[in-house]
């Protein structure tokens, strides 16, 4: 049990997807301008990461490993993820229009998001069991959402601030990410 907690907080805070592992940077800087869209994107990413981990882990361990085809994982995983996103989007669109209006448009963006593929690879490289993979995925998604929300809150304030003209917009967002990352460094001590 404590192992699972370690993994969860490790993925969420210590090895935060965006600030430490550099995964999912494109939506991070693209979608984080408003709090509402940031929340929607974060939840969508969380959903896709967990489902993708749940599906790719068995495929790797029961289909690829027995046939000695671990090298196929890049192709197989990306194919599975692309199909998954398609299915999730279709399901949401047909069952709950309000939810679709809230986060459906972000789902196609997640297909080519390094975060999803990255997490599936991490699950394999760290040799997690199935439950550990799910917890890692949950932690990663939660950490991503957290950072996205914080970032969007800061950026909404930044809109009203007055940085030097050359820094306005994206450059100051990067500098902000640096400070955010520095703050998250403080979490390094929580897991041994």
């Amino acid at each position, binding site marked *: 049990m404590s192992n699972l907690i370690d993994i969860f907080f490790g993925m969420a805070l210590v090895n935060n997807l965006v600030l430490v592992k550099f995964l999912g940077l494109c939506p991070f800087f693209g979608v984080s301008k408003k709090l509402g869209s940031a929340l929607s994107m974060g939840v969508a990413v969380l959903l896709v990461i967990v489902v993708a981990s749940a599906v790719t882990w068995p495929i790797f361990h029961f289909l690829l490993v027995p046939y000695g085809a671990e090298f196929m994982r890049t192709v197989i995983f990306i194919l599975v993820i692309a199909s998954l996103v398609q299915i999730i989007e279709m399901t949401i669109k047909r069952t709950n*229009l309000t939810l679709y209006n809230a986060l459906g448009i972000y789902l196609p963006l997640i297909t080519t998001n390094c975060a999803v593929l990255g997490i599936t690879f991490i699950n394999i490289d760290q040799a997690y069991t199935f439950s550990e993979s799910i917890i890692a995925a949950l932690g990663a998604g939660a950490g991503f959402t957290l950072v996205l929300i914080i970032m969007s809150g800061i950026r909404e304030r930044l809109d009203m601030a007055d940085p030097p003209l050359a820094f306005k917009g994206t450059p100051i967002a990067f500098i902000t990410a640096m400070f955010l990352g520095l703050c998250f460094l403080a979490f390094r001590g929580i897991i041994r």
Partner: protein
Amino acid sequence: MSAQTMISVGLLTLVGLVAGMVIFLASRFLPKEDKSLEEVARIKEFLPGADCGACGYPGCFAYAQAVAKDQQLFVNRPCPTLAPDEEGMRRLEDYLGLKANNKVGRKAVVHCTGESEALADYRGINTCQGAAQVASGHKECPYGCLGLGDCVAVCPAGAISINNERKIAIIDWETCIGCGLCVSACPQNLIELMPANMPQYLGCNYQAARDIVGRNRCPDGCIHCKICVKVSQEGEVSWDEIKDLPAFDKECCLTATAAIEKCPRHIIKKTAAYREDLNHP
């Protein structure tokens, strides 16, 4: 072709086939796609987009969705924020091909004329919520408007302003969209939503049930003489026993001209919806 190549190709084909199959099955067996998404978006264009919740739905998108599903909803329960806007209502009615009933809409009024003196110099937290916690406010009348602007902060239409001499909030009847956010923001429960064709309102909120000993009231306040009720001929003014204040008919919104004239404190005020020609003798 080595065994390895065949395995790779085989696995890829297998996964591709399975994925395609699942997508196909999902596409077949999920409930049919709700084509009304475009319809909902189009209806939403006509709505004010304030997401105030006055219609009872969580936002304009939800209301548009409900109307797209059942257009009768628009007839029975038109968007209260849109209702006073004749031009906007007409456009939506033309689009839907329906006419809405009771398009009246609502407006907010502040039941206070602000003539009450300040009891002390208030230096605490600069919100009405904060001031109201300290002995029911810093004015002589414990029910009066404190004028610190909690309602101004929440108004999405910018219809409220603070009169600095009398330190009360004034709501502009025309600009108000009737969303009701100010009603919950006021800690003194001074603001009330009225139908948009209500011709008069009471400028006092003094309710004896909450009386505080030793506190004076303002020179304007209601003295509970019930003259307004006595002179009303068609029941346009009745007496609210619980609040001990006059109440106006909200169903028919009758004009209480006599009461307006005869009130000894002149605190029954005309609203912008008051019409001379609708006088009842």
